[in-house]
């Protein structure tokens, strides 16, 4: 009798230990590849915090089908070359999802490399979650089954601006200034198209493409904007390029309406200060004053990250992890192909409205907000006393645009 008890006890202990080891050992690795040094580091480090934060929330709730998410971070210095080296390392270290966003140039390289890898290594596929690279080509001509985008693309955001501009008769002369690469050119092209469609009376009085992340002093460009007589500037500039541009504008007393993609990004609001009240606009999927109170995620984020510059700016990363979590539950598996299939067409509710992942081109449809900087906002940005206030809300379903994507699906 005692022997049996002994055996059962040992066996039970062994099983318990094995199960524990299984739980502790199993990790779902995700690779975060973005700039952690150099000119765009402020954006990359900031979004890294978001990724780690939301992954931890899922882990606290039990992980993905029992596996805890582990984030491996790689610095790519916004270079396609470095990103591919990081990609190789990440795949070798077992990452199953690659997360990237800062720089469409990098995203184009990664999506191509992921496609090649998956074709050559069946059974070891990886997915590419793109949270910020919004060159439209990634969900049109260059789309593929493995890439999922969680941010509205250039054309979708420009359409949102169009809705905001349609009735504003004070806009008569527009100046376009953008970074000289695929994304900046896409913004310029989208602006042309949108204005021709929705405001043909508006005149484009100047267009500029400047080198990416290289211009230190934007005052010559600001001088040109002033000389053109423009009352509105449309720009897709991000990170240093955005805040240096508005800084130069403030120095030169430039009085225009700024329609920006990233005007609320780290450092820009402090750089423009009060000059931006009523004039600095952005189009985003979220801002602090979208709802009358702060959302629980925002409160938790601020509790964990207490630096002055820490803001929950990337709501789309929250959406991305929410979709991943839902897909994992739906597929009951963490296999990349099953997750991808579960993501296609997946609909989810959020505090800001419903969102859906398109099955045809893997573009997430989520509510968009056009907002303006104000000194009467309830919640401010980066302790400046200024915050964004909604002008227009566009529902997720209405943000959808036609696509030329024809992707090959695994059988």
């Amino acid at each position: 009798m005692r022997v049996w008890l002994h055996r059962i006890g040992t066996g039970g202990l062994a099983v318990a230990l094995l199960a524990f080891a299984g739980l502790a050992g199993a990790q779902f690795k995700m690779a975060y590849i973005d700039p952690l040094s150099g000119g765009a580091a402020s954006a990359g480090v900031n979004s890294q915090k978001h990724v780690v934060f939301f992954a931890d929330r899922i882990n606290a709730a039990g992980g993905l089908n029992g596996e805890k998410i582990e984030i491996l971070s790689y610095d790519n210095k916004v270079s396609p070359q470095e990103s591919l080296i990081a990609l190789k390392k990440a795949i070798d270290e077992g990452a199953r999802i690659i997360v990237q966003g800062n720089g469409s140039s990098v995203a184009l390289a990664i999506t191509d490399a992921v496609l090649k890898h998956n074709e050559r290594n069946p059974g070891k596929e990886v997915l590419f979650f793109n949270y910020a690279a919004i060159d439209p080509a990634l969900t049109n001509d260059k789309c593929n089954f493995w890439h999922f985008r969680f941010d509205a693309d250039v054309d979708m955001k420009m359409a949102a601006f169009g809705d905001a501009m349609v009735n504003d008769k004070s806009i008569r002369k527009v100046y376009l200034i953008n970074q000289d690469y695929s994304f900046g050119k896409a913004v310029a092209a989208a602006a042309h198209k949108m204005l021709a469609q929705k405001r043909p009376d508006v005149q484009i009085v100047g267009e500029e493409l400047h080198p990416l992340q290289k211009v230190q002093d934007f005052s010559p460009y600001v001088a040109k904007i002033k000389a053109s007589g423009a009352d509105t500037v449309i720009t897709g500039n991000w990170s240093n390029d955005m805040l240096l541009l508005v800084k130069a504008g403030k120095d030169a007393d430039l009085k225009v309406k700024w329609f920006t993609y990233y005007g609320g990004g780290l450092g820009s609001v402090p750089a423009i200060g009060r000059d931006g009240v009523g004039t600095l606009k952005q189009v985003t999927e979220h801002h602090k004053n979208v709802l009358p109170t702060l959302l629980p995620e925002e409160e938790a984020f601020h509790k964990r990250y207490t630096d002055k510059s820490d803001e929950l700016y990337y709501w789309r990363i929250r959406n991305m992890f929410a979709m991943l979590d839902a897909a994992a539950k739906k597929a009951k598996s963490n296999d990349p192909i099953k997750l991808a299939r579960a993501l296609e067409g997946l609909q989810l509710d959020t505090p800001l409205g419903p969102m859906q992942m398109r099955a045809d081109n893997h573009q997430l449809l989520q509510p968009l907000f056009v907002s303006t900087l104000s000194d009467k906002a309830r919640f401010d940005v980066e302790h400046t006393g200024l915050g964004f206030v909604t002008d227009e809300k566009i529902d997720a379903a209405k943000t959808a645009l036609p696509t030329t994507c024809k992707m090959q699906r695994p059988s």
Partner: protein
Amino acid sequence: MKEIVAFSLLNGAVYGLLLFMLSSGLTLIFSLMGVLNFAHASVFMLGAYFSWQISRWVGFWPALVVAPLLCAMVGAAIERFGLRRVHRQGHVAEILFTFGLAYVIGELVIMAWGRNPIENHVPAVIDFAAFRVFGTSYPFYKVLMMGISVAMFAFLYVAFKRTRLGLIIQAALTHPQMVGALGHDVPRLFVLVFAIGSALAGLAGVIGGFALLTEPNMAANLGPIVFVVVVVGGLGSIPGAFVASMLIGLLQTFAVAIDYSWLDLFRALGWKVAPGSMLREVWSVKLSQAAPILPYVLLVLMLIVRPRGFMGTRET
């Protein structure tokens, strides 16, 4: 049109004077010792960071004085404890030593202040408009930059022409071996010149720090252009460095304002370039897009045509 010219002139002059502040020190060091000091722009960066830190602790005006002094000490230390060992190995080794030093200083800055740009705002005490041109106000701190630069030029000019030390340094700029043969303590002279050069770079850093972005990449961004200025202006010549900095500052700033390309010129002359040809892309680059490369074009052309530079007194 007038506005563009006026602003480009002002901005170009400010940028040119910033380059002069930075390159006057390097001209001294390069001319006297033949050392192509890659770490010079790094000392400029140190000046910006020191000034920000000191401003936070004490205030802006003390920072304006203390930061360049600190940089002078850094420069003296580099020469006395670092470069002195390397002199006997020749110019290549000296260049390489400062090259490695530039990396190291960059990393030390990251170690102390982090990788992100720091909020080096224009101090409130000088943050106001100086005057208005064509309905736009021109900030005072830019006027201050110009003032300090010009004062620096005047000081260097007088110091070299009127003081005994200045005369010795002048002589050493063109005939270093002879000066040593005459019995002057050339190594001590080297340390002194390195210190003065570094102080000038530090002063440039104090002002440049809030005109540009203060971040660890600062040195790498401005470094190559400073070499261009020194080479184009010519060895041994401070006036040459002044002319070259103004030329490059104005050239780059005006170029940004010009949206014409070779293609526009061809069209004006009635020539046609077939669309879709590879070279068409080359011709269609606008001068405003090409502005960042103009200094390097000038450098290469100058070195091929006249390695002595505009006003140089000797070649290397």
